[in-house]
């Protein structure tokens, strides 16, 4: 069993206009194991995406305090690609477009980066695995030869993120708003992909605004974040309760003095 621990994490991000650092995460604590699916919910501007980007190592975010440990090993000392090879994966909200590099070429490079130099994945094995996963996600064959994310629709990009996760088989997958901009059909397909990964050797951390996603991918644990901290943990019922009462309701119940971003 693998473990991902986030301990008292404080993170700030540079405001490019004002050239000052702004505190986003103010002491996040969270522990997850393989075999578990966790969901993080929370109002806008609460630091959910910052948390996922920081776990993966996006250089835009600066950790000022705290730790991220993968099986006891300090992740913060590792470069982005090292973290990925150690088993972390982030399905991004806005995947970058890379013209000139085909999807297939990219996937093969990512898989081979995890294997010894003299033992790349055999071409037939790769194609078999790719076809299987594309079928699972209802993806068109032409997607393999298209340039990475270039000209992909919002839905195609999300599917492509899940395809990568299925191919790379990480230990922990972080899914940053994988449901945003998806219609019901696409949501079903993407969920099918994530559910196919469920098992003893995989753990997921899903970030979402809406409970809807959790009907398709039922979480074991739900965390609610507000103002840069996890303020409440619970089971799937917590998500349903939030859907009914809203974040303001929970805030008042917990007696927190937090102003929600979208509140006037």
């Amino acid at each position, binding site marked *: 069993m693998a473990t991902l621990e986030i301990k008292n994490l404080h993170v700030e991000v540079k405001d490019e206009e004002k050239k000052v650092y702004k505190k986003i995460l103010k002491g996040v604590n969270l522990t997850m194991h393989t075999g578990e699916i966790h969901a993080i919910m929370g109002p806008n501007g609460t630091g959910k995406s910052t948390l996922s980007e920081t776990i*993966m*190592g*996006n*250089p835009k975010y600066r950790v000022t305090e705290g730790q991220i440990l993968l099986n006891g090993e300090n992740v913060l000392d590792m*470069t*982005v*690609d090292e*973290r*990925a*090879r150690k088993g972390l*994966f*982030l399905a*991004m909200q806005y*995947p*970058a*477009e*890379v*013209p*000139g*590099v085909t999807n297939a070429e*990219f996937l093969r*490079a*990512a898989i081979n*980066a*995890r294997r010894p130099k003299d033992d790349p994945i055999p071409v037939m094995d790769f194609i078999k695995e790719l076809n299987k996963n594309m079928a699972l996600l209802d993806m068109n064959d032409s997607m393999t030869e298209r*340039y990475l994310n270039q000209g992909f629709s919002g839905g195609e990009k999300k599917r492509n993120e899940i395809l*990568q996760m299925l191919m*790379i088989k990480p230990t922990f997958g972080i899914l940053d708003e994988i449901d945003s901009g998806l219609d019901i059909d696409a949501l079903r397909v993407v969920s099918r992909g994530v559910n196919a990964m469920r098992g003893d050797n995989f753990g997921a951390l899903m970030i979402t605004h809406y409970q809807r996603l959790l009907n398709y991918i039922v979480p074991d644990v739900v965390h609610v974040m507000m103002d840069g901290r996890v303020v409440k943990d619970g089971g799937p019922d917590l998500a349903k309760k939030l859907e009914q009462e809203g974040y303001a309701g929970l805030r008042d119940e917990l007696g927190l003095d937090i102003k929600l971003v979208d509140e006037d």
Partner: protein
Amino acid sequence: MLSKTTFQELSSKYNEPDWLINERLEAFNLIEKLLLPKMQQFKYSDWPLTINDDFALEQSALKISDNSELEENKVICQDIFEASKQYPEIVQKYLNSVSHFNEDKLLAYNTAFMNNGLFLYIPDNVEIQEPIEIEIVQNSMSKSALISHIVIVVGKNSKAKFIQHLSTVGHEKNLANLVVEVQALAGSNVEFSSLDEMEENTTLYFNRRANLARDAHVEWNVAFMNDCNTVGDLASELLGEGSYAYSKAIAITTGNQKVAVNNRVINRGPHSTGLINQRGVLLEDSRLIFNGIGQIVHGAHGSKADQQNRVLMMSDTAQGDANPLLLIDENDVIAAHAASVGPVDPIQMNYLMSRGIPYAQAERMVIHGFLDPVLGAIPKGKVKDRMLAISERKLINGQRSYYKNKK
């Protein structure tokens, strides 16, 4: 320089027709009088691009890929010296019809001393499916200049693709002077790709130019993968109404190499379209200048000129310039340009690395994508594979020295 009489003797030794000998003589007399072609912000007057000591006018051959389509369609595809004897009228009509030897010193030099060349004539209404491969290898095992001249005529409503591959054997310090003239007749469709990989002791001048008649369509895909100092001009003259040219060039420069390219598209005919796209990657101490020159002359109403010149810096000591120039003398036109000089895109880098791809490999992938406008347009085959292998090798070497210096 050779004396005039020796020159005449040498020239007649090969039984060239009188008109050609006369043209050579005329050109020869102009060499001293004409200036070097002008390159914006680039000085190269000390480069050995014309030779002052004696040399034999040794004629070397070039190779064309076997292509049964050519014979079937009555295409003339011959060594230029053979063609000038067999088809004197057509060769005389088209040789120096796009670029002219009285324009500058190096074009005059080319006509005077031309020792390699090809004449390719595709009749009207012919569509050649397979790309025509032209292989030119400079023999630098000994001292000898390569002075090459290719004339391509694509007939009305005809369609053809060409791939040129230019390389060197040996390491002698030699000059190469390379002229390509393309006459794209009305309604024709021409794609000309080139992989240039000359050895580092070479000094290269090139002039590749097309004249486009009404509704003609020309696409250039030129990859400057040379290791040598290079200067030259890639140009498309949009003469006919509704003609279209897309002029693409990429370069990877290394070592102390200096490269300057003028990429010009001139809209003369109304409703013509001229596009330029240049991408350069600079490594080590190299210098690269990409001048994009879009010119719309008075009368070319309803025309479009658009250009992109982008340069990627992979070294702190390299010097790169991407200069867009728009010269517009007509009101009813659309013109735009974009230029950039900078490092690789950090967002693309972060994305690739977040999938476990190491920094250096991710960087090469991003650069590969950056060069895609030309790399992706080259027809599949030997030359393309070669091009990908060269660019990968150059980038790996360049990265190695860059990161070594950083540490």
